[in-house]
C-alpha cells in the first residue's frame, strides 16, 4: 500500500479535529475524500503533508505511513523531495508576487540538474495552454480558474508521483471544472496517484475509483465509488436526494 492513514487523531491546540481516521491509497489509484464543511478534509491533507502548526494540526495518535514506513518525523519539504507527494492546497495559495513562470520554476527548487524538469514544464503547458500564454504575467492577475491551473501545474513541477488535491474545482465555471478534471484524468493515466478532496461529491465520485465519506472527523462510509453512488445514506446526505 502506498499511503496508509491509521487511526489518526489530530488536534489544533486542544481542539480535536480528527477522531481516529483510517484509509488507504494504493499506487495508481484515484481516491476521493468527501464530506461537508468542517468535516476535516483539509485537516487530513495538511497532516499528511506534515505542515507545522498553527495552520496545520498536531498528530496526537495514530500513524501515517508511506510505502510501509511512518512519516510522522518527516519534514514538510521532504514530503515533496523524498516521498514525491505534492499538495494543491485549499484556496490555491500561489505566490501572487511572482510570475506564472517563476511559480513553476520555484517548484523545481529541489530538482537541480534533473532533466525531467523540461519535460514536466512541457507537460504542464500542454495540460493548461493558458499558463503558457500568461507565463510572464504576475500570477496575482490571473483569473481564479487560471490560478487553480497554476496551483496544479506548480505541484506537478515538483516532480510528484502522488498528487493531493484540496477542492480543485472550487469557484470554477463548469467549463473550467470539466477542463480541470480532464487534466487530472490524464495525469492519472500517466501514472500519478491522486487523493482528491471535494465538497462536490457527485463530481468526485464520478471521477475516483474509491471513496471515503468524512463526517465531523470520522469516516462514516467507504467503498468503490459506484457503491457509494448508490448508497442511500450517501445519496441523501451528499448528492441531494
Amino acid at each position, binding site marked *: 500500500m502506498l499511503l496508509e492513514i491509521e487511526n489518526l487523531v489530530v488536534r489544533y491546540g486542544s481542539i480535536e479535529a480528527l477522531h481516529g481516521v483510517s484509509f488507504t491509497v494504493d499506487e495508481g489509484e484515484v481516491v476521493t475524500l468527501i464530506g461537508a464543511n468542517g468535516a476535516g478534509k483539509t485537516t487530513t491533507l495538511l497532516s499528511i*503533508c506534515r505542515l507545522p502548526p498553527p495552520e496545520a494540526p498536531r498528530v496526537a495518535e495514530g500513524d501515517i505511513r508511506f510505502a510501509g514506513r511512518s512519516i510522522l518525523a518527516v519534514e514538510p519539504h521532504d514530503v515533496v523531495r523524498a516521498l514525491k507527494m505534492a499538495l494543491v492546497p485549499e484556496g490555491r*495559495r500561489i505566490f501572487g508576487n511572482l510570475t506564472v513562470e517563476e511559480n513553476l520554476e520555484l517548484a523545481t*527548487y*529541489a530538482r537541480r540538474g534533473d532533466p525531467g524538469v523540461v519535460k514536466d514544464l512541457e507537460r504542464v503547458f500542454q495540460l493548461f495552454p493558458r499558463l503558457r500564454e500568461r507565463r510572464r504575467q504576475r500570477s496575482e492577475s490571473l483569473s481564479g480558474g487560471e490560478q487553480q491551473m497554476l496551483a496544479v501545474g506548480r505541484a506537478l513541477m515538483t516532480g510528484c508521483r502522488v498528487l493531493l488535491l484540496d477542492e480543485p474545482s472550487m469557484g470554477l465555471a463548469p467549463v473550467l471544472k470539466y477542463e480541470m478534471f480532464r487534466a487530472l484524468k490524464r495525469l492519472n493515466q500517466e501514472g500519478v496517484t491522486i487523493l482528491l478532496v471535494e465538497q462536490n461529491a457527485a463530481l468526485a465520485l464520478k471521477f475516483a475509483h474509491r471513496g471515503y465519506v468524512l463526517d465531523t472527523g470520522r469516516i462514516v462510509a467507504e467503498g468503490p465509488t459506484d457503491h457509494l453512488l448508490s448508497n442511500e445514506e450517501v445519496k441523501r446526505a451528499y448528492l441531494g436526494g
Partner: protein
Amino acid sequence: MLSTIVQNLLNALQWGSFYALIALGYSLVYGVLLLINFAHGDVFMVGAYIGFFVATFLLTQAAGLPGWVVLAVTIPATMALTAVVGVTLERVAYRPLRRKGANRLYVVITALMAGLILEHGNLALLGASRKKFPELINEVVYTVGGVSFTNLKIAVILAAFAVFVLLHFIVTRTKIGMAMRAISYDKFAVPLMGIPIDTVIVFTFILGSSMAGLAGVLFAMSYPVLEPYMGALIGWKAFIAAVVGGIGDIRGAFVGGFLLGAVEILVVAFFPSTFRDLIAFTVLLVILSFKPTGLFGVAKTTKI
C-alpha cells in the same frame, strides 16, 4: 556653486552608503520573517570589531604585507565571520521562538536584548577603551574643479552600488531569491514546493549580516575609532531609513539610506551640526505621515 552641490552630493552618497548597507539587513530579514531585527545595528558594530581584529592579526602575523593585500583579505573574512554571527543569532535567539510559535512581541524584545548582549558582551570582553582601526591604504585626496574627494570615499560609494546590483540580481534572478520573495508573500506554501524554510532564512541572515560586516569595515576605515555603542544610533537610523524607503524592499533600503544621508549632510551644510538629527528625523517623520508604507512600500502584498 555647482562645485558645492557636487561636493555635498558626494558626501551624502558616502554617508548614505553606510545607512543603505545596514538598512538592507533590516529590510531583508523583515521581508522574509516579518521580524524587526533590532540587533542588526550591533551586528554592524561586531563587524567593525571583527574587521579590526582580522586586520591587526594580519598586520602583526604577516608583517610586511602591503596594506591593500591586508584589506583584500580583511573584507571577505570579515563578511564571512559577521555572517556567522548573524546566523548564530538566528539559531540561538530567533529560531527557538519561531518553533514555539511565539508572539511577535516576544521576538522583538528578544532582538532588542540580543543587541544589548552584543554591546555589553563586547564591553565586558574588551573593556571600555576605544580601538583605533589601523590604516590599511593611504587616503589620497583628489581635487577636481573645486570638489575634493578621497579614494576611500569613492570606494565606499562604489561598494554600496555594487552590493545593490548584486542583491537585486539575487532577489530577482536566482531561485533562492525567488524563494525569499515567495516566503514574504505566503510562508505556508513554501515547504510545499520542497523548499526548506530554514535554509532560506539562514541565507537571508547571511546576506544581511555579511553586508553589515562590509559596512563595518568601510566605516572603521573612514572613521577609525571603534567603541561598543557605535552600532546603536547608526543602527536605529538605518532602520528608520529602511522604513522610510519601504521596509521589505531592497530598493527601499537603498533609497531610504541615501535619502537619510543626503538630509543629514544638507542640514549640516546650512545649520549648526547639533540640529542634524532633529531636522533629519523630522523630515523622515513628514515623509512617513504622507506615505506610511514608505517610498517603495505597498500596503501589504509583497515584501523584498
